[in-house]
Each structure stands twice: as C-alpha cells, then as structure tokens.
C-alpha cells in the first residue's frame, strides 16, 4: 500500500516505508494537539465514527474514541460483545444495522481473523479501521510501537521524528519475544519494523513461533540471553492465555523460566535498550514487575502515543486525498 489516504486500514502487510512514514509524520503533528488545554481540532467535524468491539478491550477502545473526539468526529460506541451477536446475529446483519444509522468509518475489534476485511466488503462506502482481528493484525498497535521508538531515538539524536523520516530504523536491531504464533501485534510489528528498515529477530519457545517462520523476513534467536545483548529494542508480547497458548507451553512458570524478562536477564540489556509491551502486561509472566518499572520501559508512552497515532489513521483514512485541512 502506497498511502493510507482514503483507504481502509486492515493490516500493515503491504505498507511501504513511505506510507508508514506518512502516518507517523501526521501523528507527530497531532501530538501537539494533545498537549493543548483545548485538545480538539475540527478536522472530522460532522463525520461519524462507529466503534464496534466484538471483543472487549477497554484501553484500545478508549484510545480510538479519544482520538476520534479530538478530531471533532461524532462517536457511536457499540458494545456488541454483549448484545445482538449473542442472539445469533450474523456479522453482515450487525454491520448493516450500524451502517443504517449513517456512519463514515468503523473501528472494529473482533476475535476472528479477517472479520475487518469481511466487513469492508459488506460496507464498501465505509472506511474500516482494524482495531485487532483474531491472530491476524493489530495495525494501530504496530504503528504506535514504531512511532514511540522513532520518537525516543529522535530525542536521543537531537532531531525530530519527521526530520529523521525512517533513517533511525536503518539496521535497528529489534527483538520480539513471546507468543508470536498467536499474536496479531507481532504480525503488525514485524511488518512495520521491516518496512522501515530494521532487522528483526524472534525469541520464543519453539511451539510459539509461527509455523512458517522460515518464510518471515526475520531470523530466530538461538540464544535468548545473547539476543537480549544484541537488541536495541525489545518488544515483549502478551502471553495469550485466552487464545489457548497455554497448551503450547508446559506452564506459565516454564515460559518465565525460558523466555520471561526477569530481573536477572534484564541486566543483559544495555541501558539505552528500549523495552515495549502492548499491554495489558502479565507481570511475573513475560515481564518481572521491577523490569516493567525500569526507565527504558516505555509502556505509558506507548499508551499516550496511541491517541495521536489513531488520530492520524482516522484523519488520513477519512479525509483521503482531500486532506490538508489540518
């Protein structure tokens, strides 16, 4: 994909470096809005954004709804997880009902991979923003992860994200740790980092690596401890207990034993190594509490950046080629 302008955001699979940089630069321009006393711009005034969460996720939903409101869009928030779907309504009927209310975009989260793409076929006139579909993609998480990393690296290099473009990612060493197999975040992260020019390595118990890892544009760590020393960025993943990954490792304790970021292992990290986590964290499983609270752990910064990144996504997708109203 060459640009998000006027398009759906279903995943990051086909995004070029330029398209991602465009989103990051747009997000950077919205950071300032979030620091004003009046945190609102009229860019999407009169537009209606529906947030449709078939799978509950308070933090992602709040982040998207905040982003939409700061762009002055009207937000329709539907907690479908607890409504008609339980009564056997099909995906097509649910989206048709909401579409009938008059919407311009739908932000959707679904437990099934591909649900966002299916919905984009049912309502071709509505922009679909995937807020996480099954084990497939979570594109805005991938975007806010690279946005956060670019921001931190730019600060260190006394430059700004937009000035640096994608240059700070050239050869950047990114280690992604944990349940890659079941993770939509891992798929979006790998796509984003690789498109921007980073080198990506995966570390996980063998059963939690993707079945086709040989075909991914990554390498696989043979030694986790050594990989921690190698990394400039460590991206931890949530162990997806609710997706049945429990049967892929003997126990959570064993996962911590082999791949948890314990205090001991964290000593191998260089002081400047950035540690990210998409949240919510399983403290004591994939990350020790004391490591999570370390200064180079940037989870709260990731959460904060979620808003400008999602503003950028809504803005580019909805305003498309008629942009520039910023």
């Amino acid at each position, binding site marked *: 994909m060459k640009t998000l302008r006027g398009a759906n955001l279903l995943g990051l*699979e086909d995004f070029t470096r330029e398209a991602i940089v465009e989103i990051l630069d747009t997000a950077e321009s919205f950071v300032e809005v979030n620091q004003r006393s009046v945190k609102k711009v009229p860019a999407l005034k009169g537009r209606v954004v529906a947030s449709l969460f078939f799978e509950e996720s308070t933090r992602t939903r709040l982040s998207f709804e905040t982003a939409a409101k700061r762009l002055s869009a009207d937000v329709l928030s539907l907690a479908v997880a607890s409504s008609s779907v339980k009564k056997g309504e*099909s*995906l*097509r*009927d649910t989206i048709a009902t909401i579409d009938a209310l008059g919407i311009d975009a739908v932000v959707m989260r*679904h437990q*099934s*991979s*591909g*649900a966002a*793409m*299916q919905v984009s*076929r049912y309502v071709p006139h509505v922009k679909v923003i995937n807020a996480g*579909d*099954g*084990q*497939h*993609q979570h594109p805005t998480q991938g975007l806010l992860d690279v946005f956060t990393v670019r921001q931190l690296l730019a600060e260190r290099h006394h430059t700004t994200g937009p000035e640096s473009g994608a240059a700070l990612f050239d050869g950047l060493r990114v280690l992604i740790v944990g349940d890659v197999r079941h993770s*939509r975040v891992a*798929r979006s992260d790998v796509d984003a980092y690789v498109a921007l020019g980073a080198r990506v390595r995966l570390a996980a118990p063998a059963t939690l690596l*993707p*079945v*086709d890892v040989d*075909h991914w544009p990554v390498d696989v760590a043979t030694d986790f401890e050594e990989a921690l020393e190698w990394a400039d960025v460590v991206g931890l993943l949530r162990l997806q207990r609710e997706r*049945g990954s429990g049967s892929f490792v003997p126990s959570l304790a064993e996962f911590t034993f082999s791949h948890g970021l314990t205090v001991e292992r964290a000593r191998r990290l260089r002081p400047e190594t950035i540690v990210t986590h998409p949240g919510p964290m399983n403290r004591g499983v994939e990350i020790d509490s004391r490591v999570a609270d370390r200064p180079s752990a940037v989870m709260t910064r990731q959460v904060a950046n979620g808003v400008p990144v999602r503003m950028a996504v809504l803005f580019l997708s909805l305003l498309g080629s008629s942009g520039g109203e910023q």
Partner: protein
Amino acid sequence: MTALVVRNGRVVHPNAIVAEDVLMVDDQIVAVGTNLEVPAGALEIDATDCWVGPSFVDLHAHLREPGFEHAETIHSGANAAAVGGYGAVVAMPNTEPALDSVAVVAYVLDRGANSLIDVAVAGAITVARAGERLAPMAELAALGVRLFSDDGTGVQDAALMRRALEYARPLGVRLAQHCEDAWLAAGGSMNEGSVSSRLGLTGRPALAEELMVLRDLELARATGGRLHLLHLSTARSLSLVTQARAEGVDVTFEIAPHHFTLDESACATYDSVMKVHPPLRTQSDVEALRALLRDGELDAVATDHAPHVPESKDLPFDEAPAGMLGLEHAASLTYEALGGADADPLRFFAVLSRGPARVAQLRARDVRPRHGAHGGDVVAGEMANLVVFDPTRTYVVDRDALQSRSTNTPYHGRTLQGQARATIVRGRVVAGEGVLS
C-alpha cells in the same frame, strides 16, 4: 412405449470411441450403431460434437435431508445433480438424525425414488456418527447400502475402525473414511502453512490427513477389509494410497474438483465460501492431483457437494461451516483439468461414471435391491442412464441461478467449458444445458 434416439454423437465405450447413434425404448438401450431403425414418434437428440456415455455417478453428496432442509433437500440436490449430468448420487449420512438406522435410511431411499435421479445411501459407521459404537451395518446392507462413512469427522478411534473393517468385510460393503486426525486438525479452518500464518488462521496440517490415511491403509491391510478414502487432497496422501494399492490393500479413493482447481491462496480474502475440510492445499498439491487425474490410478472424482445457507457463510471465517457446492459444475471442472480440448473421453467417463459406479456397487452386475444400473457400457440391454456431454459449450457460473437451494459455489462468475446437453435417466431426458427439462 417411449423411444429416444441420440444421433451424431461419439459414443464413449470403456475402451473405444465410436461415431454411432443410440436408441432407447422405455428404460433400456435397445440398439447402438449407424442406420438404426427408429420407431415413428421417437424423440431425437442431436449430439453433434458431443460425447455420449454413461451418466455420471457421485460418491459424495451431502443432500442435507433430513434435518437441514433449508440448505438442501433430496429433491433439490437431485435436481442439481441432474443438471450436472449425474444419473446417481450417494447421499452422505451426516444428516439429523444421522443415516444410522433402517427407518431413516428407508426414508431417504423413498424420497430419492421420487426424485429425478437414483439416490443411493452411505450409512453411518457408528451410531449418530459419534464414533463410539457400530451402527447396524447388516440391517442397512440388506436395504441396499453398500458404503458406510462417518464423513465429516472420520472414525478417530483406531480400535473401533479396526472392528468396523472386520465387521463390514463379510457384508460386502466398503467403509469410506474422511481422513483428518481430529487433534492435529483441531480448531483449524484452512491449510496450515504460510498463508494461514499470515492470515492469522489456525491451520489444518496436511499431516492430519496423511497420518490417518496411513493408519487406515494399515488397518485395511491387517484386516483385509474394504476401504474407500474420501477426498484425498495432498500429494503425500496420493503416494501413500497408490503404494498400498500396488501392495494389494483393498482400497479405493476419490479426489474432489475443488482440490484440483483451487489452492490455499483462495482463502486470502477470508471468503468463507473457500472454507472446506480437508482444506484447499498448496499449489504443488493441486498439481499432483491434476497429474494423477490425467494419468494415475484413480477410482473417482467425487464432489463433496456441501450446501450451506448464505447466513452461515456470512460468519467470520473461523466460525463459518466448512463445505462448498459441487454437483452442478464438477464435470466441467474435470473436463478442464483433463486438458480441455485435449481431454481423453475414456478417462473422463472412467473417473466420473464407471469408476464411482464400481465403488458404489451400482452397476448392472451388482446384486442390490432397488437400484438402477449405472456406469456400464453403452450397449443394447443396458439401462438407459446416459449423458450427452457437450465439450464445446461454455457458460458463466451464476450462484443465483443454481438448482441447489444454497449458493456457496466458489466458482461464481467463472466461465466454464463443457456441460451436459442432456442427462438421460431411465430413458427420459431430465436436464440439459444447465436447466431441468
């Protein structure tokens, strides 16, 4: 007396193709040759450019009745089959209730007797297809059931499958297995591999099929039982079965048109119509199936016709039911895969009619109550179950113009070549050129 004559066609015998005419009176073929004496008033079909052979036989049709009549009925499924050139189908037992008792099987046979074509039944191997205890196979065999299957799940318990093969052997029936190990395939909705991984869909590995194929071949070898393997979909499955057959294991098998025309990439847009078990495989599997279809040892192309109502296909991919329509387009797809204009008519009728009729024991020589004779030679004395197949005719698949009650064809919008100009059942033209007569 009604008379029907098929003129100017190329009659496809088991080992020869002859330009000749076929005269039928009532439900019998009475003469085949040139310059036939045709009774006054006989209906004529012009078969110029066409192949004339035994009507097709499908070993694997889900007719959904009883239990799921909103998706298909025996009546609508038989109509779909007739349009597809079929004179007989075997109805699979995964109905509700399952076809595991005399009462339900007799019901299906009765409904079938009132449809356009012959409907045979595959009985369940186990009661309610639950995989726990054997269904009354001897009683069902007495009704004419010659194939048994727990299709959809397959008998997972090796000890039970062994018993079933032993028990079935003296009854003269064959056990048809859907080979996928339930644990290896658990939760999967497409082929396991690069495409499934990118899409974030849990896979059904080729290994799930191949391991059960291997297991059942060894069980058949050990028991001397008769085995039929349903819809084999991987190159390795084909080599396993071919080898076992060469070693004398009594095994027959089928492949399905969707497995030799579509690969796993068809799932890339999460179109749940592309969801099927066993799943669409890799391109190299597709090529292995096509090569075998043309040259290898193969008993049958079978459709696995699996109607599902549209609302069930509007679910997310992982929640949608598996299966796609097959009866109306299988012959065109087979013709195309055999090489289109280069297709060998002998092979075409071998895999669509004569082979499956032999497996289903539907030929004239098979001793069996209440059935027509299928898959025979086109000679005087055979029952007049024929198809006049026009290899030159092209048409566009329209899912809204099917005989099936459902619309889940993966070929919607595609132009296909080769279609029945006339399906003749017991001397009567029941369908042709895509519509009922």
